[in-house]
């Protein structure tokens, strides 16, 4: 930033970099200048007039949100004219604002309430009738209550700039102005609800939360969203064990103010009537409810029997269970059951990337890097659909830092609008297309490379070689994977040939397709996955499934054990960029158990000591055993993200690109889980088809 400027605010001499807005300079020294329309990171509006301050030698009060600091400026933020102006502004804002605070969703956490309390006049001079229009429903999740709106344009800006969607506008003029959705009477958009979160009043309300509770009656649990791999923090509002809201209003996660439709609304799968709440066993071809004791005994007996005679196990781990569960599972399978036949649904070729980057430092990017990188190359992914947080960060990077963005995708994507170059290439052909960008890319001083699941095997090595050949000093990579703990499943060694931390095992086991194709499989144990949606079993093994729902795989099971989900357990998950974050228990569903406990109980029944099944104890083991996971505990304990760096050695296994099958989820789908969220399926209008030119 440029030179420092000297100015005085309320008699205090301060310094601020030239170009700083007065409102920010004041905030830095602890002086609050109230504002509604000003929102850090978005374009300036100066619509609300709340931030008026007195500046010496300027004839009228000035809006602090648009006024850059100047040398010798003398500012007063609490003088009589300012206090009077604020009172009047608030009086105007309340002209038509209904005083329905006792029933308003926002009551108790409303910025207008807070402002009136602190700066407002005790009484109003308006005796006229209030202008009323009826509330409108724009989509299953977004409602608009016009009279409450104070026309601050925050929602319009966050939709245009933050999301790149532009689904909201302000129609009419003067007292009749109101927010309008993109399609006359309804919204066609990401349904992300960013407009609701950013609304300072209760004008925009959420379909899942409206009129359900008061903010102070909830317990607020900051945990990690269980849908995609981006690892957004979602603060779940819980009342009486029921999750009624997801938001990130405190902006404490790596996602800052961002959440997509899944993180904000799709938590309702938790209370789906289809949840399994009792163990089940197949009796005469039918699944029947049994007790935990009976189900666990049956599983343990079968496992012991098969182990005893040296039979063949196949174990499929999950991309949504915690690191602790994944670690514990592979440990029990490898040491307890004595097999390496363990795998999971792989969606990105991280293994090859780690090998290709062996020995480098700081070559794997964090979510923060997506916001700060001077240039980004996005290959083979529709980022806005599959990785909404990364797409949001990329747009913010363009907006704030004017970064150069290069797209290599199959079809047109939303990021094209902010890209300096967009190249089209079929899946698998992306690397060949990169040469078209060589000249432009080689002028960059640093580069962030994000690549999707269609870049795998040799293509990853070619990509690294291509990037190296550009002569750029600082290059970082993100290998995109699909699910909330896809990265953790890889790191914890849910792989037939690699153990935790990508350490090769003595004798490689069967991969997922090999298990499915094996004709002599005795046991198939599936922990939180749905392989039978994609594969057919060649043999007739004894199938044990830990699941929340009766999926294709659970239906085929001999024993089904009802599992709890990420919102019901503690532990850690690792996001797409290798950042570890802690889960917190928001609620519990009677009858279910966390997978860690289920695995522990099976081990106990088999009289195998696999260690304590507490997530903290297992995480201690992970810190010692898994490369890169020796992260500082206070960071994750305080709800922040700690990045792991598993790059310090070759991974001597052959790449198996055929095993990498990205699911191609959209904003409104999430493998087998998304379909159990009523809210998510109700907004599904044109999945993947939105905003295409």
């Amino acid at each position, binding site marked *: 930033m440029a030179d420092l400027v000297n100015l005085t605010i309320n008699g205090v001499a301060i310094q601020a970099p030239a170009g700083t807005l007065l409102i920010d300079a004041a905030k830095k020294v602890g002086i609050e200048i109230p504002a509604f329309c000003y929102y850090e990171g978005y374009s300036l509006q100066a619509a609300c007039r709340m931030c008026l301050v007195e500046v010496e030698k300027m004839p009228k009060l000035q809006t602090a949100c648009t006024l850059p600091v100047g040398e010798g400026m003398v500012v007063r933020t609490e003088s009589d004219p300012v206090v009077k102006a604020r009172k009047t502004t608030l009086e105007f804002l309340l002209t038509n604002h209904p005083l329905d605070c006792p029933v308003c969703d926002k009551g108790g956490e409303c910025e207008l309430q807070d402002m009136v309390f602190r700066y407002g006049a005790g009484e109003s001079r308006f005796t006229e009738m209030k202008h009323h229009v009826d509330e409108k429903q724009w989509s299953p999740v977004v409602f608009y209550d016009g009279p409450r709106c104070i026309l601050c344009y925050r929602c319009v800006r966050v939709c245009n700039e933050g999301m790149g969607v532009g689904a909201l*506008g302000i129609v009419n003029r003067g007292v009749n102005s109101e927010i*309008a959705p993109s399609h*006359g009477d309804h919204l066609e958009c990401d349904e992300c609800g960013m407009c609701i979160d950013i609304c300072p009043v209760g004008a925009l309300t959420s379909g899942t939360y409206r009129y359900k509770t008061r903010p102070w009656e909830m317990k607020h649990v900051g945990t990690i969203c269980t849908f995609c791999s981006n690892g957004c923090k979602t603060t779940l509002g819980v009342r009486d064990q029921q999750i009624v809201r997801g938001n990130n209003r405190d902006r404490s996660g790596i996602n800052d103010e961002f959440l997509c439709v899944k993180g904000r609304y799709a938590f309702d799968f938790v209370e789906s009537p289809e949840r399994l709440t009792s163990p089940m066993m197949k009796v005469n071809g039918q699944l029947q409810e049994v007790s935990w004791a009976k189900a666990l005994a049956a599983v343990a007996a079968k496992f012991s029997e098969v182990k005893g005679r040296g039979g063949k196990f196949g174990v499929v781990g999950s991309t949504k269970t915690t690191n602790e569960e994944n670690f514990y599972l592979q440990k029990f399978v490898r040491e307890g059951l004595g097999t390496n036949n363990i795998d999971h649904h792989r969606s990105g070729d991280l293994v090859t990337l780690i090998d290709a980057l062996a020995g480098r430092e700081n070559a794997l990017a964090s979510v923060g890097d997506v916001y700060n990188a001077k240039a980004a190359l996005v290959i083979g992914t529709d980022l806005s659909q599959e990785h909404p947080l990364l797409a949001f960060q990329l747009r913010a990077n363009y907006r704030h830092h004017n970064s150069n963005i290069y797209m290599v995708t199959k079809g047109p994507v939303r990021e094209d609008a902010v890209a300096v170059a967009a190249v089209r290439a079929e899946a698998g052909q992306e690397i060949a297309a990169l040469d078209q960008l060589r000249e432009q890319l080689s002028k960059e001083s640093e580069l962030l490379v994000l690549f999707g699941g269609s870049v795998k095997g040799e293509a990853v090595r070619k990509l690294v070689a291509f990037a190296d050949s550009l002569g750029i000093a600082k290059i970082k990579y993100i290998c995109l994977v699909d699910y909330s703990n896809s990265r953790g499943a890889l790191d914890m060694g849910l792989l037939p040939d690699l153990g935790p931390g990508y350490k090769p095992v003595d004798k490689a086991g069967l991969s997922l397709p090999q298990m499915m194709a094996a004709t002599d499989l005795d046991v198939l144990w599936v922990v939180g996955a749905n392989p039978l949606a994609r594969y057919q079993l060649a043999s007739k093994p004894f199938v044990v499934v830990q699941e929340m729902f009766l999926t294709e795989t659970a239906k085929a099971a001999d024993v089904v054990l009802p599992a709890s989900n990420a919102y019901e357990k503690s532990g850690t998950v690792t996001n797409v960029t290798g950042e570890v974050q802690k889960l917190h228990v928001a609620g519990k569903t009677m009858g279910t158990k966390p997978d860690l406990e289920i695995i522990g109980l099976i081990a106990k029944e088999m009289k195998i000591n696999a260690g304590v099944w507490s997530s903290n104890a297992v995480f201690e083991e992970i810190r010692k055993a898994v490369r890169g996971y020796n992260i500082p505990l206070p960071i994750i304990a305080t709800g922040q993200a700690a990045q792991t760096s598993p790059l310090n050695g070759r991974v001597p296994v052959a790449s198996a690109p055929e095993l990498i099958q990205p699911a191609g989820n959209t904003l409104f789908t999430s493998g087998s889980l998304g379909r159990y969220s009523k809210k998510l399926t109700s907004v599904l209008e044109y999945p993947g088809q939105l905003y295409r030119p």
Partner: protein
Amino acid sequence: MTFSPQLEAKLEKLINSYPAGRRKSALIPMLMFTQDEVGSVTPELVNEVAKRIGIPPVQVDEVVTYYSMLHKKPMGKYHVQVCTNISCLLWDADKLYEHACHKLGLGHKEVSPDGLISLEEVECMGACSWAPAVQVNYDFHHHVTAEKFDEIIEALKKTKTQ
């Protein structure tokens, strides 16, 4: 959606008179020219203009609903606009507007059954020096009195019988 060759040429020239990245400046003239040909700003027209300029349709709607000279429903062949903003108001434009309503039997943004004349109370049209002002389509009438207004209307009605 396509327009007449003359209008297409005009729009082409209009859009190209702004540098790339600033094309949305063409929005208001574009809406006015196309409204004249189409008759009103239909939803199709909003989408078409949005597409040509490269902005979301809702941003076009913002402009359409803001300006009184853009209409979402067709107005009469002769659109009579009476200004009642401050300068005209000082010259009794409110009474003139009332007179116009009685004379035509129409209210704000209403069209006569034969589609010949429509009436609108508009915001300032920049003719303050000649207040009170009335605009019929693109023609201005200055220092309008009730009598003068009647003459204007009679002249308009005559065109129908011709």
